[in-house]
């Protein structure tokens, strides 16, 4: 059984190798392994698309599987968390992007890199009001089309429907 796991984890890069490699592309990245089981990269919004497309296209990293795309509200900052996995090397990575602009938060869409992002970004837009540039069809996905506000933001108030314990 352990052999099988080994077969599945072939060519995997360790977190420190990944960090060395990725930091050589862009010096403005923040790396962190604290409080998480993955290597976390925090990237500035303007470098987001460039970094992510490089992460996918580079043969050493080749993160071709975006398995989770989460919208986040850190109280002051809004952001998106990308969970990436490589189907060839089987290593995993987390990329975070933040913005403090709560009125009109905007990031670049990653639909052209991973097709799955189209639906996930719609979901993030629906819940957090984060807009994505170059998204083909950005609209409310789950909430009614005329819903006011973004329900998963921490400052969202709805006295009728929400029961606070």
């Amino acid at each position, binding site marked *: *059984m352990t052999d*099988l*796991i080994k077969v*599945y*984890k072939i060519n995997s890069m360790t977190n420190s190798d990944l960090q060395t490699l990725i930091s050589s592309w862009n010096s403005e990245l923040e790396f962190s392994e*604290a*409080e*998480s*089981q*993955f290597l*976390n990269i925090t990237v500035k919004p303007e470098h987001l698309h460039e970094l992510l497309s490089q992460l996918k296209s580079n043969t050493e990293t080749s993160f*071709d*599987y*975006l*398995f*989770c795309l*989460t919208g*986040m*509200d850190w109280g002051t900052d809004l952001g998106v*968390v990308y*969970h990436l996995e490589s*189907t060839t090397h*089987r290593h995993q990575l*987390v990329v975070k992007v933040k913005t403090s602009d709560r009125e009109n938060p905007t990031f670049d869409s990653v639909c052209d890199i*991973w*097709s*799955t992002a*189209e*639906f*996930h970004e719609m*979901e993030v837009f629906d*819940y957090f009001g984060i807009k994505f540039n170059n998204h083909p069809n950005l609209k*409310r*996905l*789950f*909430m*009614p089309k005329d819903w006011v506000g973004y*329900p*998963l933001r921490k400052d969202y108030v709805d006295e009728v429907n*929400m*029961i*606070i*314990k």
Partner: protein
Amino acid sequence: METTFEKNSFKSEEYFINMGPQHPATHGVLRLLLTIDGEIIKNVEPDLGYIHRSIEKMCERDSYQQIVHLTDRMDYLSAHINNEAVCLAVENALGLEVPERVKVIRTIIAELTRLASHQLWWGVMGMDVGALTTYFYGFRDREMINDIFEETCGARLTMNYNIPGGLMFDIHPNFVQRTKDFVAHFKTKLPEYDTLLTGNVIFQKRTKGVGILTKEDAISFGTSGPVARASGYSCDVRKLHPYSAYDRVNFNEALFTEGDTFARYRVRIQEMWESLAIIEQLIDNIPEGDYKTATNAVIKLPKGEFYQKVETARGELGVFIVSDGKKNPYRLKFRSPGFSNLSALKKMAVGSKLGDLVAMMATLDIVVPDIDR
């Protein structure tokens, strides 16, 4: 010389069709906006949210014990596996080691859940392509599993048998015998599934070469579970990131490369055999011991981010917990398998016929509450 023949004079007209929210083939309240030219599909646009209950928002309010029962209501056909995902995430975050007995029981029940889900899927798959009788044969076998669940967990569908730290109560004394009876029974019935439907020439014509998803697309669309494995992408979480007792059982990952509807069908039939094999390996070897480890009445996770993935009957379910050290999570995100699988539908369906769409939807095995959450 300019020809007087105008292409436009023969132009066919496209029109919209609302498939759903109430439609027999959408398996719940999913609405598909179809653009159709005759019988040929030009565009598919899912319209979601008809059963949206904002489970993620509710999770931010509830304690960790209370979150578990909400996950029953997401993908209700793999309720136990969803429960397990949250419990594993909380246990890993706390650094809690659950007893061996718990791990084995969880694995057996998870595989029974997978079998029940695939049996229901098989019945409904047959019904979607027009063979109504399969539905009852699938349900006959599923009923035995539901009885096992009801006897041990107290409920047939939304069991809520897991709690962070173990199980709510020990297995029922009849559990082992009933499970063995079921395995013996189902081993005689599963070949019947093949003779009735798999081999049928009409069924094969309906499914072979329909709704092809290439490996590249499967990865790009983030598909997982049987849908991805039918396209040749090996993604079984039970193999890649073993949890519970999956590291000590011997089973094969069902893998096909055709990527069409028939391959997805065969992956699930193959998975039923593998699940039976897993149950057979474990059912005689349930170790003695406690059925749970003690946890505090109020569970507080340490500050940080925790991700746990499990393999449900539909694919990879991810639970992403962001904790700020309080008794309820700061943010909890469910990466549901059906959501990503559904996004690949457009890629598969465009250019095929209305009847094919129904077969594709059947093998995507969508559970709408899992998508809408």
